[in-house]
């Protein structure tokens, strides 16, 4: 049985086992119909031209983990950014771990999707927001919606700001030979409220893991959201991320994506600007090698006038790795005075690495500023010689140049500990120990 059939037959069993509100039940059933109709995307579709899911579909993934697995904190401590200075929503093989988590209901809700989907007190929020910005057309998002049960639920009321950032971490223990995970997150940040989130997925063995994640973020008027995605998973883990962001007037949302690990990673990042004076920022650093594959697909839809979007993606590709950047900007006819900037710079450090970079601009308004730029190059030999002539060995010089290349993406990271952590991961990835942080 192929993966699609297996998912379809599992859905029945899944549906009859979960206790949820009827409205969500209908959403799920509709979503499943869409997935049945469309199936997994293939390379024939323009949006999936450079990323093949064929290999993954041959793997016999477990769709539901068999049992609840425990982890010792000391064994996974290193994957957390903070011991105490963060809220934590932690999942082990897709199942919530209360032991490793620190949730709160103190003025804000930082808790679980499973609670939000089943408890009546959350119904008003679920009715207004759940599956409202996520695509009903895209088959992998539909697949996630159909199986949506667990994930992070964050609700920040008007004028509130949680005392500390939220870490959402998914561990895969490897107790299953191969595991499919479908986390579903809902994040609502009300008017003038603020939130910082760090999301990480970590497989602890070399068993196959496929994560198909959907996150919906709603930023109301003047809300500020910083979202950081750390993708440094083992090279047997594949990750499809579908993030949908709905922004209202004067809200500021920044998403940073750090892609260093994984076998196949696909980031679908979608911004919808439903208001004026909105600022949307997407930044990414990708450093991969071996046979790793990272595909960034961004969409910014400028629906109203006077908004801005900024995209800055840097990639360093070694060995046989492949990268994709596809940045789509749509400016509607009424969205005058839009400023939309997009930059994608890549360095290929191996003859066998490839990058496909494609800007896609659809501009229907006439009074706009839109720019896009894409570069693909090698490290500057003159710069390397300059550094060597000062006594910096070639390997370190290369690393320093690569560091510098990625540096301006890190400049906008607002959590200092996170910046340090990312710097360390980059240094490790580049195989050097630099005596300073950039």
């Amino acid at each position, binding site marked *: 049985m192929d993966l699609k059939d297996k998912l379809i037959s599992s859905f029945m069993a899944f549906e009859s086992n979960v206790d949820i509100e009827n409205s969500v039940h209908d959403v799920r059933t509709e979503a499943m119909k869409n997935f049945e109709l469309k199936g997994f995307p293939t390379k024939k579709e323009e949006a999936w031209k450079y990323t093949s899911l064929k290999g993954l579909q041959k793997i016999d993934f477990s769709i539901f983990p068999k049992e609840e697995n425990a982890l010792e904190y000391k064994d996974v401590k290193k994957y957390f950014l903070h011991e105490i200075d963060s809220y934590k929503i932690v999942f082990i093989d897709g199942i919530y771990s209360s032991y490793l988590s620190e949730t709160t209901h103190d003025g804000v809700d930082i808790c679980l999707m499973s609670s939000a989907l089943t408890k009546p007190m959350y119904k008003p929020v679920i009715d207004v927001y759940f599956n409202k910005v996520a695509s009903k057309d895209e088959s992998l998002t539909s697949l996630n919606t159909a199986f949506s049960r667990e994930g992070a639920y964050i609700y920040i009321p008007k004028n509130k700001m949680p005392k500390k950032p939220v870490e959402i971490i998914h561990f895969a223990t490897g107790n299953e030979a191969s595991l499919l995970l479908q986390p579903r997150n809902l994040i609502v940040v009300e008017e003038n409220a603020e939130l910082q989130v760090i999301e990480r997925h970590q497989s602890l063995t070399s068993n196959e893991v496929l994560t198909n994640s959907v996150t919906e973020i709603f930023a109301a008027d003047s809300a500020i959201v910083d979202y950081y995605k750390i993708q440094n998973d083992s090279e047997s883990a594949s990750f499809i991320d579908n993030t949908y962001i709905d922004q209202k007037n004067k809200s500021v949302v920044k998403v940073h994506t750090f892609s260093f690990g994984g076998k196949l990673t696909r980031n679908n990042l979608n911004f919808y600007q439903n208001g004026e004076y909105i600022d949307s920022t997407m930044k990414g650093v990708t450093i991969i090698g071996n046979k790793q594959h990272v595909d960034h697909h961004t969409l910014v839809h400028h629906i109203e006038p006077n908004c801005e979007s900024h995209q800055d993606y840097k990639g360093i590709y070694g060995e046989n790795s492949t990268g994709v950047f596809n940045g789509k900007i749509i400016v509607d006819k009424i969205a005058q005075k839009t400023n939309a900037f997009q930059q994608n710079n890549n360095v290929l450090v191996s003859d066998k690495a490839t990058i496909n970079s494609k800007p896609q601009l659809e501009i229907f308004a006439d009074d706009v500023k839109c720019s896009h730029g894409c570069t693909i190059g090698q490290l*500057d*030999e*003159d*710069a390397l*010689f*300059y*550094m*060597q*002539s*000062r*006594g*910096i*060995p*070639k390997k*370190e*010089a290369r690393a*320093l*140049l690569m*560091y*510098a*290349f*990625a*540096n*301006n993406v890190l400049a906008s990271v607002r959590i200092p500990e996170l910046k340090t952590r990312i710097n360390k991961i980059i240094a490790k990835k580049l195989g050097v120990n*630099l*005596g*300073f942080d*950039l």
Partner: protein
Amino acid sequence: MLKIKNLHASVEGKEILKGINLEVKAGEVHAIMGPNGSGKSTLSAVIAGKEEFEVTEGSVELEGEDLEEVSPEERAHKGVFLSFQYPIEIPGVSVTNFIKTAINESRKARGLEDMPANEMLKLIREKSEMLDIDRKFMSRSLNEGFSGGEKKRNEIFQMAMLEPKLAILDETDSGLDIDALRIVSNGVNKLKSKDNAVIVITHYQRLLEYIVPDFVHVLHNGKIVKSGGKELAVELEEKGYDWLKNEAVV
């Protein structure tokens, strides 16, 4: 200290240096002058070890060691310093972090620990004050957006920090106004000692009024066509290079 014997070097199959002989002893200052395209910058790049130049004949020895198989960074660790004619911009790496890395890599190569942070800071302050460099400058990205003069001053700052045995100043005077020229020259003169040597590459005699050479060599068409004392530089300034070109043909 430096012994260059019958040095021939090519880039992309084109021979640029055609048999250079030069000996520089500790405590000496040598000036290499010559018209554009005579091979001055190639000579400095070959001494510093730039790989795109192929040494086809002859040798470069530093303190008795043939440098042929020695990488640019190892040459730096042995005390060779090249001040670039066109310093490279490196966005994202500050002047301070760059020089820290350079110093500690050299120390590592000599089996030493990293320089303690307070010592490093003190050294940076001392050397930047000597060259009249603003402290704000130190946190800027290396050479990025620097004026020509700022870049050259920054090269000499790095030289002051690294304290090389053999410093090659490739057209350090170009892009400098008279005040900057004086500051930079003073910096170089302060670093001079009986244990180190300086090679000054320049078009003009102007710099040599400040950094007074013991020997002046004229490079033309890949060869040293004339050598003399500091008075040769004055003569070149007056007469130009044409009389020497004719001499070389003869």
